[in-house]
């Protein structure tokens, strides 16, 4: 029932929205809040163990083994909560900006939510793939039609690049299907008990890796990202950075680790090295970025680089850390992109050097911004800390040298975030920033929940982790039983 509701609410509202001419934004907001309520009920009813709960399994195309098979374990629950928590905020943030053809705009956001939720709860490989691609279509239109001047080429690149990656994943999924015994099946359970030989797993590892690496993105598959993030309208960027890239991370945890442990064993190191390069590379580039939105985009690459490195390092600490960091990165990225949007709405620019002194006229904004910033640079007692701590610990245990190199994000993150905060917010007002007004009610309604999350997750990480831990243990033990003993 819960799963049906989780999919139906956004799907139906996406269908109705094109016909809602009066206040479509409010309608979408209500729908997304209803969705959040359903997710909250799911969290209350969820028993924190490793089992898959609320499962439904309806035949769809039985001859091909495609079942409508969905369910929620601890990891899925975290992702569903993240999605349903952020979507209302994203809609709310869009409400006081003018978007042409709002009915279609909000309908696409809701459709996007269908895709995202579907990805996080599908336990049938092909179903996963269908939702994976479904999520791409609305974001393409949002970015292309509501974006900045150069949005069409940027979005086109993003679209082609992602499709290109998913293609390999589709092949891998179909291949796995044919390896399943008997009548063949696409179910996750069937895949994760395959025990394929080493060479096959290696090939499949790369097929999946390319798809997920593009989505995250992992260096060097990242060049679509800064352009798209900068050119897409802010709600689109928030969807992309806050939620959509977690599809890739989730995909690695769900569809790579338990199914391809030997592939991970052989090629995990390469994947980690690429991820670690990405951390340092993106952090270094972020230091000299002139555009704040682009700076956040590069910082995002650095953060997901660490998440990926931690997952491939395959320790209990780092995988739990990756869940934690997915949540906090989602929250913080949405916050930061909204901050960039607030600045742009007041000054018509995101060029860091032309701003300054905003704290004088907008002190509340400055405080909320600083808290989110400290979350981003992983200060203890904020959400970023625990994830980063566990991830770095995992990478360090995998290889001390790589751990220390990834740790540079601790320093470089502070460099670029504090530098941009200083140049944007502190100092004396200039002509451009002297009339900046403080937050509106609507903007507070977006930023305050985010800040509450930043602090809550920092104070009580165990509340979130106790849901996810059994599922992580389960995935690790499946990978272990498929022959992965001591990945080093």
């Amino acid at each position, binding site marked *: 029932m819960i799963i049906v509701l989780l999919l139906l609410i956004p799907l139906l509202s996406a269908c109705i929205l094109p016909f809602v001419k009066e206040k479509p934004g409010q309608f979408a907001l209500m729908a997304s809040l209803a969705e959040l309520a359903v997710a909250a009920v799911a969290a209350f009813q969820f028993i924190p163990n490793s089992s898959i709960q609320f499962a439904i399994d309806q035949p769809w195309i039985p001859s091909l083994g495609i079942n409508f098979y969905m369910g929620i374990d601890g990891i899925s629950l975290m992702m569903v909560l993240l999605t349903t928590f952020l979507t209302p905020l994203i809609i709310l943030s869009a409400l006081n900006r003018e978007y042409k053809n709002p009915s279609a705009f909000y309908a696409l956001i809701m459709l996007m939510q269908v895709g995202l939720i579907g990805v996080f709860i599908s336990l049938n490989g092909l179903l996963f793939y269908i939702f994976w691609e479904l999520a791409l279509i609305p974001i393409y239109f949002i970015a292309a039609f509501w974006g900045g001047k150069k949005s069409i080429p940027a979005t086109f*690149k993003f679209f*082609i*690049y992602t499709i290109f990656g998913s293609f390999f994943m589709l092949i891998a999924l179909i291949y796995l299907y044919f390896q399943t015994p008997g009548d063949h099946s696409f179910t996750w359970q069937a895949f994760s008990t395959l025990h394929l030989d080493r060479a096959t797993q290696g090939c499949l590892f790369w097929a999946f890796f390319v798809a997920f690496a593009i989505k995250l993105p992992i260096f*060097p598959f*990242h*060049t*679509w990202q800064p352009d798209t993030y900068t050119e897409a309208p802010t709600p689109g960027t928030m969807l992309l950075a806050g939620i959509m890239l977690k599809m890739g991370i989730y995909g690695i945890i769900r569809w790579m680790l338990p199914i391809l442990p030997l592939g991970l064993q052989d090629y995990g190191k390469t994947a980690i090295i690429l991820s670690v390069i990405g951390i340092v*590379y993106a952090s*270094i*580039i*972020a*230091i*000299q*970025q002139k555009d704040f939105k682009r700076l956040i985009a590069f910082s995002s690459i650095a953060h997901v680089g660490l998440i990926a490195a931690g997952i491939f390092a395959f*320790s*209990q*600490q780092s995988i*739990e*850390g990756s869940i934690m960091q997915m949540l906090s990165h989602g929250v913080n990225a949405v916050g930061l992109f909204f901050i960039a949007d607030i600045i742009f709405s007041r000054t018509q620019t995101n060029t860091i050097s032309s701003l300054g*002194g905003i*704290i*004088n006229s907008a002190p509340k904004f400055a405080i909320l911004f600083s808290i989110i910033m*400290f979350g981003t640079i992983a*200060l*203890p*007692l904020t959400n970023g*800390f*625990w994830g980063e*701590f*566990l991830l*770095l*610990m995992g990478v*360090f*245990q995998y290889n*001390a040298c790589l*751990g*220390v190199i990834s*740790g*540079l994000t*601790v*320093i470089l993150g*502070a*460099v670029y975030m*504090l*530098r941009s905060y*200083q140049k944007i917010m*502190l*100092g*004396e007002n200039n002509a451009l920033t002297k009339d900046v007004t403080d937050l509106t009610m609507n903007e507070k309604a977006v930023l305050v929940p985010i800040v509450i999350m930043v602090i809550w997750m920092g104070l009580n*990480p*165990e509340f979130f*982790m106790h849901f996810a*831990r059994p599922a992580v243990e389960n995935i690790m033990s499946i990978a272990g039983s498929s022959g992965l003993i001591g990945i080093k």
Partner: protein
Amino acid sequence: MTNLVFLVPLLPLIGFLLNGLLNNKISKNLAAAIGVLSVAGSFAIAAGIFLQSFHESSASHTIQYCTWLKAGSLTIPFEFLVDHLSMLFMLIITGVGLLIHIYSAGYMHDDDGFNRFFAYLNLFMFSMLMLVLGANYVMMFVGWEGVGLCSYLLIGFWYKNQEYNSAAKKAFIMNRIGDLGFLAGMFLMFSHFGSLSFAEVFEKAKAFSTNDTAIVGITLLLFIGACGKSAQIPLFTWLPDAMAGPTPVSALIHAATMVTAGIYMIARSNVLYTLAPTTLKVILVVGVFTALLGSFIALTQKDIKKVLAYSTVSQLGYMFIALGLGNYNAAVFHVMTHAFFKALLFLGAGSVIHAMSGEQDIFKMGGLRKHLPITNITFFIATLAISGFPLLSGFFSKDEIFVAALSYSPLLWLPISILFFLTPFYMFRLYFLTFYGEYRGTQEQMDHLHESPQIMTIPLMILAVLSVVGGWINASLFNIHGLEHFLEPVFRNYTLPFSSEGNEILEYGLAAVSLVVVIYLIWLTNNVFAKKEAENLAEEDMSFLQKLSYNKFYVDELYAFLIQKPLDWISEKTYEFIEVSGIDQIVNGTGSFVGWSSNTLRKLQTGHIGFYLFAMVFGIIMILVLNFII
């Protein structure tokens, strides 16, 4: 009483929340009351715990509240450790902190950010108390970074000034460099001990042999963290810049408490450090050089707070010398006395700056003793104490370090003798330039010249008393070993590299030398700097050594040249050449290639039936040939 320990950090946290959330909705008096009372409450509880400890059989209590985080075999409980070391630090932090809070109520009274200031101060108290109370390295790290945050917020307290903001940023980033070391140390520790809790780690450490690679690695990495927080070479340059913050902040954070966190951490980990003599040698060398460098730079600085800042760098160096010698007790002892006299010096400097309408250049002061009698006397006492004048607090703690150093190795005779002269010299130079000689300020400043209100002078007087008598708690010259006995349960694992009994001659000798040297230097500096016209050398007229000292050995310039500029350059060039013209071009090129090939292949669709037939036959033949070959 020990059960109430959670209130010690909690009260300042509540103070922070009240002042932070209500901010400008409450009056300045109320904000100050919240700030001061919350710390007073913490102090009262800390004092209660301390007094009770004399009646308790067990010297150490670990109080576990809940599991903060679990991940696989890693468990991080939320737990406090109340033992004699954390008790002592609690007392120093809340005691000196309380005095500085009271002082701030007067000092900051005309500032618009008054309420915000008290909110930050309380947040600092909370973080610092978390740091010393945490019973595992993660909790210590939480406090450790928390005090770094407060330091950042308070250095950049006057955020309209971008120079101050840059100083704040610099402090944060340099601390972060150290923190990476701390993190790596924790990770390595977890790999070898499977835990980050003090009790478990120290217990398991017993199985390791002396100078085990793992232990040396862990202790060195943690020491990098200490270098950042406690401003040791090479991470010391942020501390002088940190003087951009309001003066009470310099007294509390950048002299008495936060910067001693590194010493606390090493003293807390004494079990590990004692197992790693190699690390101790590194610490000793770093400490010696930092002490020398700091005091050498302090000789020529003209800003009253900069002199004190470099003096702090140097005094922290002393503490690291003590740690490096394995004499944790002496290090902690010096932390305590230093907290008294250095806080007093900074607060006195604040009183002077307050009276001089914000002037910080000592060459524009002079003759202030007539106008600021209480400040003058208390500042003089603190100057005597830091110079090591016999029987004052600084004498006893410094003596203990010097005796230990001199009996450790003859190589230390030279640096120690230099330090013997440098400290009293720069301190009395500062004192005489400020309080003696002719007044050199403007007439306008003269008109406003006044002694500070009682709310500021009473803390000065209390600290002056402590600076005089504070050392008697461990006056080893007179066979008083109070502190040593008190801390014995914490440090009982280490064995001193020397026996203090056989060093009586050295101790008496040092006392005599101290007396002579300090009196001689008072006479000397009085002659040079208390004149009517003190010689204010312009930079061009300085000798090479003076220039070197005045320009702080050009370390800032060196770092800008070696790190900052290259980093910016790499950042820019990586973006231009690798990102935009490199990787992205390859990606776009792939796209263009596909476009180009499809465009080219499209032209094969010519519409000539003959060509299609030819292609078909050619294809069939190729298939057959391939079939045959394979």
